[in-house]
């Protein structure tokens, strides 16, 4: 299943700076996108989501941008904090696929103090 792609396996960022995580998708039937955060030995934890009718959603330090024409979304974390060090998964779903989530491979974020 290559419908959701996260091409950067890792990202290292200085504390206080912006982290930008990217995600691309191929299935035009996807209409809802989510970001999950995962710490080692824990399950994915929901972070933020965006509907396809929007192009931006903001929640505190986290903002997700959606470019439907490019089939691209990004997650911005500002400012980055050491506790943000985790694996971030982009996920997508649509009515046509029974609401199951299709995940990207994940990006490991390391925030340096």
């Amino acid at each position, binding site marked *: 299943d290559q419908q959701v792609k996260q091409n950067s396996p890792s990202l290292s960022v200085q504390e206080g700076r912006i982290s930008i995580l990217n995600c691309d998708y191929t299935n035009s039937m996807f209409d809802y996108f989510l970001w999950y955060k995962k710490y080692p030995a824990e*399950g994915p934890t929901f972070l933020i989501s965006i509907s396809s009718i929007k192009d931006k959603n903001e929640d505190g330090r986290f903002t997700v941008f959606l470019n439907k024409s490019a089939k691209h979304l990004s997650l911005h974390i500002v400012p980055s904090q050491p506790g943000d060090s985790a694996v971030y998964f982009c996920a997508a779903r*649509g*009515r046509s*696929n*029974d609401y199951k989530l*299709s*995940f990207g491979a994940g990006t490991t974020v390391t925030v340096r103090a």
Partner: protein
Amino acid sequence: EPEVTQTPSHQVTQMGQEVILRCVPISNHLYFYWYRQILGQKVEFLVSFYNNEISEKSEIFDDQFSVERPDGSNFTLKIRSTKLEDSAMYFCASTLRRTVQETQYFGPGTRLLVL
């Protein structure tokens, strides 16, 4: 805050043995899912379950797999005859409703190792 729980956290088994992974979804949730993540790979959908029936299953979910809601709280995934390639982290998830905007809440996972 309500959460999805899974037991055991780790399971080691011999190839060919049966394993049952257990999940307790959030109490008022109605839709249940199993996903798995093989080491170094993506989280993959296995199966969705609602009203005591499978709603959808992936190609991975073959005849060796089955799911059950034996009572009002547990949701189980059974692998009848485990293979080496079944070694993975298995995640249970649940949602209250089945709408596009509904968030799936995940459990901490069971790490299955087949020897």
